[in-house]
Structure formats: structure tokens, C-alpha cells
């Protein structure tokens, strides 16, 4: 590992560390508190997703996509299923599209809640984390109501969804939204405008827009740097063009544009937008229609390849699927947004202090299951 300088200390923020959001190792060169060099080492959760995709049929891959980004399982299903349907040019009934958008937006709220809560935990505030998890539990109840699972659902199938909406689903979700909206202001009071929290996050880990694009960063991290890029708006898939919502972009309110506070606040605003989408979707959802109607008996997409992207809570989730006409995909490559977000850490976290590196890592909101696939 080369010559270790006298005063510099090589430190492993090791695979097991309270705030690395899973099994990520940061090999850090520090002298005193200042970090001079960071090299993330990943692969501790490499579960051979792509090898599995080459050995199981199209619809058996769906549970594996759940387990890639286990914080936003619905969004992963959605991404994979949209890609396969695009490959097969399969048209899905209206009601299924609405159900998928509702589930994806609920999942976005749940994932952002946990991301914001854990970020507060990294900075040292314990209580917001538990408040946000308590509200996330209510969303998990709604998911449990529909498909019986709490975290990993295997809910969206190619051509439809596994279970139709239960009776009273729309009312319970409306009840949740009415309960949830005032909670967001409570979080803002508790954490967002908290003087110490702002002190710890403003002007820290600034990610300029061009660096972000060159590193392929996407999602809230990119929007916090001022780039208005949201797949639901720029390249609408499914029926996102039916809803009107605006895309929150960082504006450097509490410090320079693209700092940790912006990334945090953009996620908070996105939760509000998702609530807006949910209200519209729940109002317009067609009552009748069979969700199993368009389920193809045998999924054999024609020979060819497709690259399709969807907007998950962490960014652009891309699926490159190559099919040779047989029911088993010949190659599925998952382009994970957290993978690109982590690659930026080496660039923006150098020169900061130890506690800032943890804060920057938390603000990027990475999930190791998706990075290591």
C-alpha cells in the first residue's frame, strides 16, 4: 500500500460502522481531523444479481429486483417491469398503471422518510429518526393491506400487478395523507431549520452541477445541484404525464448550491410533491378493470435489447435487457443510481473533517444492496 507518511493515519471506516448505511468500507487517509484522501471499497454485499438474471425466467427475476434496492422495492419492480413491457410492446390496462404510480409514490415517501431519518441520526439527532420511522410504519401497513408484505413485495408483475386493491384502499390512503401532511412541518421544525443541523450541513460537500453530470449522478442529488432533471417529467413513462407536480430543485437557501442541506431539503420537498401526485392519482383511479387481464401466459420477448430508465427515490434506475427470444433473459444489467452517487464521494468529501465525511455520505443516501447488486 505504498509508503505510509509519518503524520498521516490510514483509517478504515470499516465494513461494519454505525453510519455507513450497510456494508461499505471507506479507506481514509487522515492527518488529525482533516481527511486527505478517501477510496470507497465496495462489494461486501455483491449478491450476483446479474448472474441470477441469466438463470431464471423473466418473472422470477422480479423478487431479485426487490432485494437490490431494499428501501424502494416497489420502484425497482416498476423499473424492471416497464423495461420488459417495453421490450415486448405489451399494453397494460389503465387501472394497473394507476396502481403502479400510487405504489411507486407511496414507496418514494417511505424511502425518503427513512433516508432523512437516518441522515438526522448521522448528524446526531436521535428523535427525528424515530418519528419518521413511526410514520413510515403507516405506509408499510398500506402496502401490507394490498400485497401482504412489509418491505419486499414482488407486487408488480410483467403486464399487471399481483393483487387488486383491497376494499377501502382509497379511503385508508386518503386518511394517511391527511394525517401525514402536517407531520412534514413538524420534521421541518424539528430538524430542517434546527440551528445546529444547518451549521453541520450548510456549505458542506458541495457538488457542482458539471461534476455531478460527469459522474452520472441522478435523482435528488443532481436536482440539489440545480439541474432540473426528473425522468417523470423529462422522459415520462407509464402515466406520469397525466399528473401535474413540480420538480423541486436546490436553490442554495442555507449555503452554496448543491451542499448537504440542499440534498436533504430537496428530498423533503419531494415528499410533498409525492403527496400531491398521490392525491390526484387516488382521485382519478378507474374503479373497475381486471388487473390480471393483460398478464401474458408465456413471457417470451422478441430477440433484441432495450435500455429503459425510471425515476426511483435515489435517481435514474436503468435496466439494459438483452433477450434472445427464450423465456430466460440472456443479459440484464442494472444501472443503479446509488452506485453513481457513491462514486462522487471520493471527489467531494476530500479536505473536509471526519464528521463532515459522515454527513456527506449520509446526504448522498446510498443503499449498498443496489450498489453491489
Amino acid at each position, binding site marked *: 500500500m505504498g509508503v505510509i507518511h509519518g503524520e498521516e493515519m490510514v483509517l478504515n471506516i470499516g465494513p461494519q460502522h454505525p453510519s455507513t448505511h450497510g456494508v461499505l468500507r471507506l479507506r481514509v487517509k487522515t492527518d488529525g481531523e482533516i481527511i486527505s484522501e478517501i477510496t470507497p471499497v465496495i462489494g461486501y454485499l455483491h449478491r*450476483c444479481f*446479474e448472474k441470477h438474471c441469466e438463470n431464471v425466467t423473466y418473472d422470477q427475476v422480479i423478487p431479485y429486483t426487490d432485494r437490490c434496492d431494499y428501501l424502494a422495492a416497489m420502484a425497482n419492480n416498476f423499473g424492471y417491469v416497464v423495461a420488459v413491457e417495453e421490450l415486448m410492446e405489451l399494453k397494460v390496462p389503465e387501472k394497473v398503471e394507476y396502481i403502479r404510480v400510487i405504489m411507486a409514490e407511496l414507496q418514494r415517501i417511505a424511502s425518503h422518510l427513512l433516508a432523512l431519518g437516518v441522515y438526522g441520526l448521522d448528524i446526531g439527532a436521535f428523535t427525528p429518526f424515530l418519528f419518521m420511522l413511526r410514520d413510515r410504519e403507516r405506509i408499510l401497513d398500506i402496502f401490507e393491506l394490498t400485497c401482504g408484505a412489509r418491505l419486499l413485495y414482488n407486487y408488480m408483475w410483467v403486464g399487471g400487478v399481483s393483487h387488486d386493491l383491497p376494499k377501502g384502499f382509497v379511503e385508508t390512503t386518503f386518511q394517511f395523507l391527511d394525517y401525514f401532511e402536517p407531520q412534514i412541518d413538524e420534521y421541518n421544525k424539528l430538524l430542517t431549520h434546527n440551528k445546529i443541523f444547518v451549521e453541520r450541513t450548510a456549505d458542506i460537500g458541495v457538488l457542482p452541477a458539471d461534476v455531478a453530470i*460527469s*459522474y452520472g449522478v441522478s435523482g435528488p442529488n443532481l436536482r440539489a445541484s440545480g439541474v432540473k432533471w426528473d425522468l417523470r417529467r*423529462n422522459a415520462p413513462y407509464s402515466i406520469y404525464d397525466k399528473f401535474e407536480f413540480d420538480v423541486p430543485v436546490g436553490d442554495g437557501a442555507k449555503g452554496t448550491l448543491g451542499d448537504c442541506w440542499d440534498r436533504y431539503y430537496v428530498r423533503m420537498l419531494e415528499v410533498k410533491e409525492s403527496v400531491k401526485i398521490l392525491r390526484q392519482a387516488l382521485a382519478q383511479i378507474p374503479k373497475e378493470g381486471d388487473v390480471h387481464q393483460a398478464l401474458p401466459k408465456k413471457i417470451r420477448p422478441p430477440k433484441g*435489447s432495450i*435500455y429503459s430508465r425510471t425515476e426511483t427515490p435515489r435517481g435514474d434506475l436503468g435496466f439494459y435487457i438483452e433477450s434472445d427470444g427464450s423465456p430466460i433473459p440472456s443479459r440484464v444489467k442494472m444501472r443503479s443510481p446509488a452506485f453513481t452517487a457513491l462514486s462522487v464521494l471520493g471527489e467531494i468529501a476530500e479536505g473536509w473533517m471526519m464528521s463532515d465525511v459522515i454527513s456527506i455520505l449520509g446526504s448522498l443516501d446510498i443503499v449498498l444492496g443496489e450498489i453491489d*447488486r
Partner: protein
Amino acid sequence: MSADQEKLIAELVEKGLAGDMEPINAIEDRVLRSKAKAALAKAKRAAKVAAASAPAEEKPAEEPPSDNPNQKFGKMIEDKFPGSLDADLNDTHIQLKPDNWFDIATWLKSEPALHFDSLQCQTGMDLGENILEARYNLHSMTHDHMIEIRIAVTRDKPNIPSIEQIWRIGDWFERETYDMFGFHFDGHRDHRRMLLPEDWEGYPLRKDYEVQETYHGIIVPKVKQGWE
């Protein structure tokens, strides 16, 4: 199957090809409906294959200025770097030779009209008979168009110039593709395995990959003794 059922399915397939699925879905008898659907799917596939081969002949006849990005930019690459194309253009991708891929990539990024500033995804492929292929999906944030570039190399000489200086995310994408397939990206500053441990043998995503027996004394293969 009685004659009139066959006739019924035939004209249903005509309607299906024309695009409206209502009559097929309207049949109550499940067996008949699934037969009709299968027939329709077969007919569709036949039509698609015919369509795919159709443009091949009429393309040399005259050059339709098709707005498909792959075609358009493929031609631009052909004019700028003659002889770099590996196969004739089609709608899905641009096939390139590996040798001057670095200058094409810098040009693709710096050219204001193209301005492909974000490398969306890089995929490795094992096409069998020792051909490895690296596929790049490039996307431009400003013009919002997307192309796919494929570079095929053989297993014994898998060298592709690395583009990690141009798109910084290429650094990690290429390391992962090397880790999984065994490409060699010349000029890559940190050419190490990305996901697997340093001392892992073999390249897992190759079709003919055999799992190693033990790793640091732990039995790796899928079945422990006495399980099966």
C-alpha cells in the same frame, strides 16, 4: 379443431394485427381465446421479422434521412472518422472498432451539436464463441437524445481504450465490467476489481464460468455436503 374455428381465428388475427384486441378478448371460451392469442403473437412476430429484414434491402436503394439518433450520429461518426464503423448502421446501435474509440468519445462529448455529457450505462456482454462486447449508452442532458455504442473484441485480446478521463463515472463502470467479464481497459488509472475481492479467480458473468472450490477455506459451491 373444426374448420369454422380456424376461419374465426384467422380473421381475428387480421383484426389483431390491425391493432384492436377487443374481439379476441371478447371470446368466452378460454381455450379458443388462448389459441387465437398465440396465433396472433406468432403472426405479429412473423410480421416483425419481415419488417426487420425489409429495410436491409431498400436501404442501399436510397438514404432516407431517418431521425433515429443511432442512424444520424452513426453517419456523423462515419464522416468524421472514416473506417471506424465495424458493421453497417441500424436503428438500435452503432458498432465501432475499438482502436480509435477514445478520440471518438472525446469528440462525442466536446462537439456542441452532440454534447453527450452523461454516460448512462456501460454493459458487458459475452456473445459466445469467445466474443466479448462492451455496450455504452450515451445520453445528452441538453439535447436529450440517446445513442448506444457497441465495441466487440475477442477474449484473447480484450483491449478497449478507457474513457474514464472523459466521463468520470466510466472509472467505476469499467472496473466493474473488467471484474465481471475480463476486458482490459487500456489507460485506466485504477484497473482493479470493483465488486469481487482482489484474489477471486475467474470472471463470473462469462457464460462458461465455473465457481472456484474454496475461498479462504470456505466452501463456495452452491451445495454444502449432505444437503442435496
